[in-house]
């Protein structure tokens, strides 16, 4: 059976949210979590994803200087960096957590990036071996 990576996408509702949702509708292994601002996302949410068996986490935030709440995108950038360090400590490939900046009208770019993320997730393989870590 072809390996289908489980991916959670945290998406700011002011970014490419609708486009992301359309992806979620087509693939059952993709989970989309909407946030009012990516600044709402904390480490614990991301780590819970990996804990619950998600193979990849994508954080989608707005482009710089275009956050509706001024610096939410900067804050989540720091949260992601800190969480990636934590993943390294836990011997989890930090590539499983990636952050992207999209403006709401960057639909095409999102589709391309998403395809690449699925590819990367497939190459990384499941986060936990069969039978658990």
């Amino acid at each position, binding site marked *: 059976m072809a390996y289908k990576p489980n991916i959670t996408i945290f998406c700011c509702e002011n970014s490419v949210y609708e486009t992301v949702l359309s992806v979620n509708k087509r693939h059952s292994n993709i989970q989309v979590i909407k946030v009012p601002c990516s600044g709402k996302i904390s480490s614990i949410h991301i780590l819970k994803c990996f804990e619950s068996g998600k193979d990849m986490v994508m954080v989608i935030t707005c*482009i*710089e*200087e*275009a956050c509706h709440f001024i610096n939410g995108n900067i804050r989540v950038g720091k949260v992601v960096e800190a969480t990636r360090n934590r993943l390294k400590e836990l011997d989890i490939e930090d590539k499983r957590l990636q952050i992207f*900046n999209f*403006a*709401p*009208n*960057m*639909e*095409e*770019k999102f*589709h*391309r990036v998403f395809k690449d993320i699925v590819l990367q997730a497939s190459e990384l393989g499941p986060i936990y071996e069969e039978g658990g870590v």
Partner: protein
Amino acid sequence: MKHKNVLVVGAGIAGITTALEIADRGITVHLVERDSSIGGHVKRFCCKAVDDVCTKCGACLLKDRIDRIKIHPNIKIYLSSNISDISKSKDKFFVQIKHSNKINPVEADAIIIATGFTPFDATSKGRFGYGRIPYVFTGLDIEEHFKEKGKFNLLDEIPKRVAFIQCVGSRDEHLNKGYCSRVCCRYALRLAMMIREAFPEVKVDIFYMDIQSSGKEFNMLYDQCKDDSKIEFIKSIPTKAQEIPETKSVRVLYEDMTETKLVEKDYDLLVLSIGIMPSKDNQIIESLFGINTDEFGFFEPVDNFSTRTNVQGVFLSGVCEGPKSISETIRHAEKTAVDVMEYL
């Protein structure tokens, strides 16, 4: 106050903005759009972020407004429609909105014209080869292409030399376009930076008359371009462009102002920064409503500080009154809404 109705002609960013402001105050708005979808030109513009940093083009501002307008209880949208007849009695306008064969009669207490613009047809400037030479595009072509594809894929190979020619169809007495289109320097610099980001080795030449560097912090973007060693600003407008099929390039001929000699330079891609022309519908609107236009065909308000026209109860919103950027259009459209609310 008796229930009021307002007609907005044109559902681009200006028409939508004015319509929302007025409808939010409890007034019924009839929004007429000749195309089969709303959003005007802005819906075809791409996000011009460079290095994931917003360059404030404003193209993304359309989406939220469209989402709001589609569900607004006070706004009635007429697509693929136009105004077929209008008459006035006392303070009321009686308008006929035509959609294929159907006629919708509507009563309005005020009318807002928001017919936007028509992009300059670059084929009129035949010397630049638009439509003939395959490597010549307009700024709008680049925008639409990038919006659709998400990347620059216009040519078979990676471009090494790109040129922008500013003021195509603007500041041109011969074409009766003796005005500045206001947005071309800004969009050209943004597109130039995007191309530089997409192809780190590409060299970009920008042929210009005067760079219009106004706008909040826009000077900083201009400085960034000037600091980029691969972007060169050449103060000269080329006289012609010709195709060189052997090298798949376009040869641009211009006068070097400092050394006063003619120079020929070859490019893989030539971008014409086309300007803003009054909408083709303006003439129809002009004759229907009797609104004054200026010598270029833009609608003329009663004075420099007003959105009112010579026809009482008719207001102007957005670029139909003169070239503006998206942020400037939004400000103007909101100001029009204020004026209309005062009038009603």
